[in-house]
Structure formats: structure tokens, C-alpha cells
């Protein structure tokens, strides 16, 4: 068999050149699974060429097996490389086009074969491989790992079987024509040359793509670092502002609460001295003034709780407290007229619950104040305390006759700044929000329901 040696040698030189470039870049290539596998495939292709050279020289069975095996491994690593998700799309297209072109050339070369079986084998092999590769190209990026493995495995299995069959047929027929027509012509040299060129193209694209990816990654890292540092700066700034605001609120509440406490004390003092009948008018005026002061104090307490304790959870201090005593003390937070409307229902035995007494006082005061505000003047408000053995905790419920039946359903009244149905009633809309936050802090809940014209709020605290 006479081979067109200069062409074959030129092809090998090109191949070696490509290989050198690739080995030089190996340290970069192996960082990408697709490139690494493509490189392994190249090594096997090289072995395949040598094996094929021997096979053409003398079509023996060992040479055929060596050629078949190396072809199998070449295809195996090509398919694995192509099925890697990191394989860039334009790059995959170029590589696949090159492979498809090689297969097409193979088919045309084989068309001149006299042996019909080999020709059929080649055609079936080439077209099926092309189909499988097409499927791979279309789906590998989107396929699951299992899907990709399945397609790769079927391509491999088929490729291996086809190569074996073709090789076997060739050996059996000892059809020297195959080698002579395929590789001893210009077609063969152009085929190899095309392969080498495809390779160089591949390497260049790979190199480009790696460079681009690296510079993009570097750019992204810089942008990310800049963004992070901006965000940190903003956060520091907003933390500083928040801290300052909290400080102001604390100062405000403390500075204002103290004189309010004293003003209230003064009014109480005057109120207790004015017991004569002619003092009745003054007493009413004083009671009104005191009610105003009490409302301001409550609002300030709520603001203080919102600004400090709820934000900084570490201030939360749950202890065992006698909640009957607590309810009693909370009712005393209200003035005499309001207190006359409150009716407490509870069992007589001592009841303790694990809670923060300061927060619980604020929560209950808010609920009672809400009930007093949204019920008709003089109507009673019932405060109930009951153990909830099933949920292991204590339930406080506050019940009032509803002044305005048009309760807005679907409005979350436990949200900040949402108020009840009576838009004319005063209040900041802070109370129920604070109460619900306090319930959450105690791993409890607050719910409301409507029953026969009465509104019932239930606060549950887990024990």
C-alpha cells in the first residue's frame, strides 16, 4: 500500500503543533472539564492514527482492535467533552460542525468503496453519530446530568459497535481498496488537514474564551467588591442614623416621661384633695387633663418599646410573673371612669406565666385602651385570663361591644399604622402593632374575632 506520505507527514506536524499549543495550555485547560476531556480525546486520536497506519500497512486483528479501541476512546472523550455544561455554546457549534464535516467527508470517501457492506456500515455509523451529536448539541446544556450521561452512553455504545462492525467487515473481506481509496488520495490528506485546522481553530477559540471568561470574572469581582463596599458604607451610615434616632427617642421618652409622671402625680394629688361638691367641675377638668397626660405617656411607652426593646431582642427579659396581679395593675393604669367600665374575670388560684412584665403590661394596656376607644361610651369591657392547657400557655382576652359594626375585614390591624374602623377615634395605630410584636416575642399570638356585635381580642402567651 502506498500512502501519500508528504501529506500525512505535514498533517502530523500540524497535529504536533496543535498538541504543543494544547499541552502548553494544559494547566489552564484542565480547569474546565470540557477542555480537559477534549484534550484526552486528542491523545486517543493520535494513538488511533498510529494504529490506523499499522492497520493499513497490514490489516491484522491486533491492529484492528487497537484502531477500534482508540477510535472508541476518541469518541468517548469527545462526547464527554461536548456533554459538559461548561462547554460554551459558540464553541460547541464550531467543534460539532468540524466533526459533522469529517463524518460527511468520510461518507463521500466511502462512496467509492466497492464493498457494499462497509459502505452501508459507514453511512449508518456516520449519520447516526451525526444525529446523536445533533441531539447532544441541542440539549446538553439544558439536560440534566442523567440525561446527558444517557445520551453520551448511547452514542458511545453505538459508536463502539459500529466501529467494531466496520473494522470486522474490513478485516474479513481484506478489502485493501478501502485504505487505498480513502487514504491514498487527496481526500485523505485534505481530511487530516481539515482535522488539524479544526483543532487549531478549537484551541484558539478555547484560548479566547478562557481569556474572556477570566477577564469577565475579574471585572465581575471588581464590580462585586465595589458594590459590596458601597453597600457596607450605606449600611454603616444607616446604622449610625438608626442608632442616633434610637438615642433621640430614648432621651425624648425619658426626658418627657419623667415630667409627665410628675404632672400626673400633681393632678392626682389635686384630684384627691378636691372632694367637696363645689369642686366637682374642677375634678372633671383635672380628670380630663390627666387622661390626656396618660395617653401621651402610653404613646411614649409604646414608642420606647418599639424603638428599643423590640429592635434589640436582648432587652427581652421573660420571668415568672403573677399575671393576675399584672392584670390588676394594668387596670389601674386607667382613670377612675375608665376603670369602672372594666370587668375582670379570672380563676382565683395563683396564675404565673413566663413573660416580660414590662412588655406584657404595655400589651394589655394597649388592648384595653383599644377596647375602651372602640366601644360606646360607658359600655363595659371584659378582661378574661384563662389557662390554655392544650397549647400550654395563658390566654388574655379583651371583649367589648363594637361601636361601629362596619369592621373592615381583610385589613391587618396588627400592622404598623393601621387603625380600626372608626376613623374619628384618636390614636397612632401603634398600639395593636406593638401588642402583636410583643406576642411574637413571647412565642405567642394575637387574634381577633367578632361575635354578636362584640369584638374579642385574644392574646396567647406560650408558657
Amino acid at each position, binding site marked *: 500500500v502506498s500512502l501519500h506520505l508528504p501529506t500525512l507527514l505535514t498533517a502530523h506536524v500540524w497535529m504536533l503543533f496543535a498538541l504543543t499549543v494544547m499541552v502548553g495550555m494544559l494547566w489552564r485547560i484542565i480547569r474546565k472539564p470540557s477542555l480537559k476531556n477534549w484534550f484526552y480525546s486528542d491523545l486517543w486520536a493520535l494513538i488511533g492514527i498510529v494504529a490506523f497506519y499499522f492497520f493499513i500497512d497490514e490489516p491484522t486483528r491486533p491492529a484492528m482492535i487497537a484502531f477500534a479501541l482508540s477510535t472508541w476512546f476518541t469518541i468517548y472523550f469527545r462526547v464527554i467533552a461536548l456533554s459538559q455544561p461548561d462547554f460554551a455554546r459558540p464553541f460547541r457549534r464550531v467543534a460539532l460542525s468540524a466533526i459533522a464535516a469529517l463524518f460527511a467527508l468520510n461518507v463521500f470517501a466511502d462512496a467509492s468503496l466497492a464493498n457494499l457492506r462497509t459502505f452501508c456500515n459507514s453511512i449508518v455509523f456516520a449519520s447516526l453519530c451525526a444525529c446523536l451529536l445533533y441531539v447532544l448539541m441541542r440539549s446538553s446544556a439544558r439536560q440534566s446530568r442523567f440525561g446527558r450521561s444517557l445520551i453520551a452512553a448511547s452514542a458511545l455504545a453505538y459508536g463502539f459497535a459500529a466501529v467494531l462492525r466496520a473494522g470486522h467487515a474490513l478485516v474479513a473481506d481484506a478489502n485493501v481498496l478501502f485504505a487505498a481509496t480513502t487514504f491514498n488520495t487527496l481526500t485523505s490528506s485534505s481530511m487530516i488537514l481539515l482535522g488539524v485546522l479544526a483543532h487549531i481553530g478549537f484551541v484558539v477559540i478555547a484560548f479566547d474564551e478562557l481569556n474572556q471568561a477570566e477577564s469577565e470574572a475579574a471585572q465581575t469581582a471588581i464590580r462585586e467588591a465595589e458594590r459590596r463596599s458601597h453597600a457596607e458604607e450605606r449600611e454603616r451610615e444607616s446604622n449610625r442614623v438608626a442608632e442616633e434616632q434610637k438615642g433621640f427617642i430614648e432621651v425624648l421618652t425619658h426626658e418627657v416621661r419623667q415630667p409627665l409622671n*410628675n404632672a400626673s402625680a400633681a393632678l392626682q*394629688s389635686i384630684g*384627691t384633695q378636691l372632694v367637696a361638691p363645689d369642686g366637682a367641675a374642677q375634678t372633671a377638668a383635672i380628670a380630663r387633663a390627666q387622661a390626656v397626660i396618660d395617653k401621651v405617656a402610653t404613646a411614649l411607652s409604646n414608642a420606647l418599646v418599639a424603638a*428599643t426593646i423590640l429592635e434589640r431582642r436582648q432587652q*427581652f427579659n421573660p420571668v415568672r410573673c403573677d399575671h393576675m396581679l399584672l392584670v390588676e*395593675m394594668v387596670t*389601674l393604669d386607667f382613670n377612675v371612669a375608665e376603670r369602672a367600665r372594666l370587668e375582670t374575670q379570672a380563676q382565683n*388560684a395563683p396564675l404565673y406565666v413566663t413573660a416580660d412584665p414590662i412588655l406584657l403590661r404595655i400589651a394589655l394596656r394597649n388592648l384595653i385602651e383599644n377596647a375602651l376607644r372602640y366601644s360606646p361610651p360607658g359600655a363595659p369591657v371584659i378582661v378574661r385570663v384563662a389557662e390554655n392547657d392544650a397549647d400550654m400557655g395563658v390566654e388574655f382576652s379583651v371583649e367589648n361591644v363594637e361601636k361601629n359594626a362596619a369592621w373592615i375585614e381583610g385589613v391587618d390591624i396588627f400592622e404598623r399604622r393601621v387603625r380600626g374602623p372608626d376613623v374619628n377615634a384618636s390614636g397612632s395605630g401603634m398600639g395593636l402593632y406593638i401588642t402583636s410584636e410583643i406576642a411574637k416575642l413571647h412565642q405567642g399570638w394575637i387574634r381577633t374575632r367578632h361575635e354578636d356585635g362584640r369584638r374579642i381580642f385574644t392574646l396567647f402567651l406560650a408558657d
Partner: protein
Amino acid sequence: VERSGPKRICIIDDDVEYGEFLASFLRAQGLEVSLYQSGSAFIADGDIASHDFFLVDLGLPGIDGVDVIMLIRAQSNAGVIIISGRMGPDAFNAGLSAGADMFLNKPVRFDQVLQAMRTVSHRVSAGDSGVTHWTLDGASAELACSNGRAAKLTPLELQIFQLLAEQGEAGCDRETMAARLGVQDAGSARNLDAAIFRLRKKVEQATHRAAPIRTLHGVGYALGANFHVK
């Protein structure tokens, strides 16, 4: 305040106005009141034994309110109520562990002070003032409170206290407790929580004091202070 209740009240508060208004309110109720503006003034000329009830602010100039309370407690079983504008666990816990009977957070109304005094003096007259001590008697399966009352314990309840006493300050996590006590419920500690819930209620109903079991949120349980094992 009842006829048998305290008669000589001592107010220690650096807020002069509030102190004076409170004093005149209490005087109007027929009580004798002495008013001091600092801890040192009280120590200089106040006689602890001559008062039978103390209303103390925490943030006092010079000697702090907590120290004043400790001083009072060392010599007297009289009722002590803290009236303070301070919030947060530090003030609260320091005050109560120094031996105060109750903590009232300002703003507070005179009625509330009076009601609190009434409740505390009930306790005082029942010999139940100041710091509560607990004694666990394994032999008789009983938990005794320093106010003279005691709770009978079931074997499981006794085991709970013994296990917690063994663990000391750090307490015990719920999983370990459930496993050691054999109250596991398909891997959850709900049975344990239920047992603790019932135990607390039982102890509190029997002794009228908060049960000496602390909840370590999200972790487990620990014993309260002043718990002794016989």
C-alpha cells in the same frame, strides 16, 4: 392599705417632685411617710428598723438603689417595692435578686403603688417577703418553699428537679432531658414541655410563688436561684 398593714413608709427617690406628691398621697391615706433623696441620706439618718415598708428608686445618686435594697434586706423583712423609670432586664433582675418584692415601672399611678403595697404586705404578713428559697427533699419527694408551703412531687417530677439540680446554672437542653427522663415522644420534646408546664402549675398552686424553673428559650430549662437539695 389594710389596718394591719404597714404604717411607716420610707420613700427613697431622687425625683423630688414625684417623691413629695407620692408622700402627700400616702399621708392622705393615713400613713407616716419619710422621704429621702439619696441612698446616702437614707443611710445617714434613716433607721431601717423604724420603717415597715420601702419604696425605692433604682437610679440614685451616690449609693445605688440596688445596694440600698441589699442593705435593707440584711436587716429587715419589710416589704420593698422598686419604682423606677428604667427598663430592661438589668435593672429588673438586679432589683429583684437584691431582695425587692416587686418592680413597678414608671409611669406609675398612686393607685398602682397602693395596690402593689397591699399585695406585698399580704405576702409579708404571711412571712413570705424578700428572696424565696427552695429546698428539694428527695426522701419525702417534696419541694419546700421558704414561705412555709410545700409541693408534693411525683417520681417523674422529683427526677426533673434532681436532673436540673445536677446540671446547675447552665441548665439542661430539652433533648437530653427528654432522653434522661424517658419522656420522648417520637423524637420531639413536647411531652417534656407538657410535664414542665404541669409541674410549674402544681408548684405555684401549692406554694403561691413562681416555680423555680427557668425556660432557656430555644434550648431547655434550668433551675432558678436559691435552690437547695437536701
